[in-house]
C-alpha cells in the first residue's frame, strides 16, 4: 500500500511539473510577437467569467455572448484592422481566484482591458484596476463602482442597480392608483450584489412620497420565504423591489401567491429574465421586470448581427437567452472603446476612447451608452416589462427616473 502510494503521488508530481513546463512554454510563445512590434498585433482583452461556479447558470451564457461578439467582430476584420483576442479565465465565482486571474491577465498576458463578472470581485479589484489603469466592464451594475475618484477605470454599460430601482419606484409612483402614500418594501439577499441598491433606493423612496415599510432578506439558496412574505403582508406593502437572482425571485413569488399577497413585485436586472417564468410558473404572472438589455426574441436592429453570427455557426437564436445578449452588448461597448482609442491601444487610451462614447447605439440591444470623463454611468434608462401569459411584455419604452 505504502509502496504503491509513493509511486502514484510521484506520478502526480511529474504531471504537475509537466504542467508548469507547459505553462512556461506557452508563455514564451505568447510574449514573442509582443516584442517584435508588428503593426497588426492583436488587441488583447481579458475576461474573468463565471462558467462553472455558483452563478454559472447566468454566467455561462454571458461569457458565451462575449466570446461570440469577439468572434463576430474578428470575422468582420477586427477593430481598426486589428484582431481582437479575448483571453478568458473561468474563476468559478471564487474571489481569491479572481485576484489571481486578474494578475495573470494583466501581468502575464498583458491585456489592455477586462470584461468582468460579479459585484463582489469587481468591488474587490477596483483599487488594483485603478493602479494598473485597466478599463473594466463587468456584469455588475453596482452604484459603488461609479465613484469616479475611487474607481476611475470601472465602466457601467447599463443603468446601475440603484438607478434601476429608482426608475422602478418612479414608475410605481406614477402608476399608483390607491390612496395615501404607497408603501414599498425591499427584498434582497445578504451579499454585496444584493445590498448594492438598497440604501439609495430607500432614500429615493422616502424623498418621493413613498413609505418605506421593511427590508426582507432572502438567502440566494432559500427554499422558503414564508416569514418574509408574512412580514410583507403584515406591513401591507404595495410594492416590493426584488434584487437577487431569478431563483430567489421565484421562491418569493411562489410564496407570495400561496399566501395571497397583493404586493406588486418589481425585480431588477438579474431577477428578471426568461428563467423566472419557467421557475415560478403561474406565480410569475403580473411580475414586473426592470430590463436593461433586449430579449433574444425582440425584433431590433442589433439582433440581426447576432442572428447572422449564430447562423454562420449553425446555431439558432431561439436557444439563446437574455444573458447572451447582455454579454454580447457589453463586449460591443468595450470594442467600440478600443476602436476610438485608435492605434495606440493602452488602458489609458481605451479609457479615453470609452469616455468619448456619446449615445453609442448598440442597435437596440441596450439603451444608448454615453460615458464622459466625469461619469461612467453608461445609461440611466431601462425598460419595464410585465409577465403576461408566460412572457415579458414591455410596459414602457426606455425610461429614466429624472
Amino acid at each position, binding site marked *: 500500500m505504502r509502496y504503491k502510494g509513493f509511486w502514484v503521488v510521484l506520478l502526480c508530481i511529474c504531471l504537475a511539473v509537466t504542467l508548469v513546463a507547459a505553462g512556461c512554454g506557452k508563455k514564451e510563445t505568447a510574449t514573442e510577437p509582443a516584442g517584435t512590434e508588428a503593426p497588426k498585433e492583436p488587441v488583447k482583452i481579458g475576461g474573468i467569467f463565471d462558467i462553472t461556479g455558483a452563478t454559472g447558470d447566468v454566467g455561462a451564457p454571458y461569457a458565451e455572448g462575449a466570446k461570440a461578439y469577439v468572434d463576430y467582430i474578428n470575422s468582420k476584420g477586427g477593430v481598426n484592422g486589428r484582431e481582437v483576442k479575448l483571453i478568458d479565465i473561468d474563476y468559478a465565482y471564487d474571489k481569491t481566484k479572481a485576484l489571481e486571474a486578474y494578475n495573470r491577465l494583466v501581468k502575464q498576458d498583458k491585456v489592455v482591458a477586462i470584461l468582468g463578472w460579479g459585484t463582489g470581485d469587481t468591488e474587490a479589484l477596483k483599487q488594483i484596476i485603478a493602479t494598473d489603469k485597466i478599463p473594466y466592464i463587468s456584469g455588475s451594475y453596482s452604484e459603488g463602482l461609479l465613484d469616479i475618484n475611487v474607481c476611475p477605470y470601472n465602466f457601467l454599460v447599463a443603468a446601475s442597480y440603484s438607478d434601476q430601482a429608482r426608475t422602478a419606484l418612479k414608475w410605481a409612483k406614477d402608476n399608483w392608483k390607491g390612496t395615501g402614500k404607497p408603501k414599498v418594501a425591499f427584498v434582497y439577499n445578504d451579499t454585496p450584489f444584493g445590498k448594492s441598491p438598497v440604501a439609495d433606493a430607500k432614500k429615493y423612496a422616502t424623498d418621493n412620497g413613498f413609505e418605506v415599510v421593511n427590508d426582507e*432578506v432572502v438567502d440566494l439558496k432559500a427554499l422558503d420565504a414564508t*416569514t418574509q412574505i408574512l412580514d410583507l403582508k403584515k406591513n401591507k406593502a404595495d410594492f416590493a423591489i426584488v434584487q437577487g437572482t431569478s431563483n430567489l425571485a421565484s421562491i418569493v413569488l411562489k410564496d407570495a401567491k400561496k399566501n395571497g399577497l397583493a404586493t406588486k413585485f418589481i425585480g431588477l436586472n438579474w431577477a428578471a429574465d426568461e428563467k423566472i417564468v419557467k421557475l415560478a410558473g403561474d406565480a410569475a404572472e403580473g411580475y414586473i421586470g426592470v430590463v436593461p438589455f433586449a430579449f433574444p426574441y425582440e425584433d431590433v436592429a442589433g439582433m440581426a448581427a447576432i442572428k447572422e453570427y449564430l447562423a454562420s455557426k449553425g446555431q439558432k437564436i431561439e436557444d439563446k437567452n437574455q444573458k447572451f445578449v447582455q454579454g454580447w452588448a457589453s463586449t460591443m461597448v468595450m470594442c467600440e472603446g478600443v476602436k476610438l482609442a485608435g492605434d495606440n491601444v493602452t488602458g489609458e487610451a481605451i479609457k479615453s476612447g470609452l469616455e468619448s462614447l456619446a449615445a453609442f447605439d448598440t442597435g437596440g440591444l441596450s439603451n444608448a451608452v454615453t460615458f464622459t470623463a466625469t461619469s461612467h454611468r453608461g445609461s440611466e434608462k431601462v425598460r419595464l416589462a410585465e409577465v403576461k401569459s408566460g412572457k415579458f411584455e414591455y410596459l414602457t419604452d426606455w425610461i429614466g427616473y429624472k
Partner: protein
Amino acid sequence: MLVQLLVTGLVVGSIYALVALGFVLIYKASDCINFAQGEFLLVGAYVSLWMITSYHIPFLAAIFLTLCISLLLGILVERLVLRPFIGEPVISVIMATIGLSSLMRGIIQLLWGTETRIFPNIFPQTPVTFGGVVVSQVYLWSLGLAILLLIFFSLFFKFTTTGIVMRAVADDQQAALSMGISVKKTFAITWAIAALVAAVGGILLGNINGVNSSLAHLGLKVLPVAILGGLDSIPGAILGGFIIGVLENLAGGYLDPYFGGGVKEVMPFVILVVILLIRPYGLFGKEIIERV
C-alpha cells in the same frame, strides 16, 4: 401569524429532517460524517429529472430507477473513497468527504451543466389551506415521508437483523468482526441507504425551486440539525429538523426587524453553539466516556 410560522417551520423542518437522516445513518454505522450529502441530493434530483424529461419515463418508474441508481452510487462511493478511511482520524474523514463533494460537483457539472433545470409538475401546484394556514403540497409530502421514514428506521434498527448488525458495527467494530459480522458489507449497506434517502430528499427539493448545483449547499445548512439531535440518533435527526425549522422561522418572523434581516440563516448555528455548550453530544447523542 404565529400559527403560520409554526406550520411553515414544521414543514420546512421536515425537509431538513430528511437530509439530516442521511448524515445520521452514515454516522450511526461508520462513525463518519458525510460532507458530500448535498451532492447525493443533487444526484437524486438530476437523475430523476433526466429520466423524466429526456426519456419520458413515467414518474413512479423514474423514481424507482433513481433510487436504484442512488443505491449503486452509495455502494460505489463507499468502496472507492471511504473504505480506506476505516479507523483513520476524524479530520481525514472530514476532508475526504469534502473532497468527495468537490469531485461529485465537478462530475455533475460536466454531465448536466450549470443552468437551472425545471422539474415537470409532479405535485399539484395549488397550496392546501387548513383554517387560514397555507402549505404547499410538496411540503406535505415531505412531512409525511419524514414521519414515515422515522417510523421505518426506528423499527429497522430495533427489529431487523441488518439494523442490529449496523448498530453492533457502530458500537464496536472489533467485537462485531469477532461475531462474524462483515463490517465492509455493513458499511456498503449503510452508504447505499443514505444515498437512497438523499435521493428522496433531492427529488422533493427539485420540485420546490428547480435544480442547479447550489442545491448541494443545503447539505452544509442541515449539519446543525444532525448535530443538534445528536449525530447517532434517528429520532434526534427528525426532531432536530423540526426544532431548527420552527426556531429559524420564529426568529425570522420576530427578530428580523431588529437585526436588519437575515437572522433566519444564522439562527441554526447560534442555537447549535448554545446547545453544544450545554450538551456536547447533542440532544439525543450517545455520550462517549473517555478513559485513559
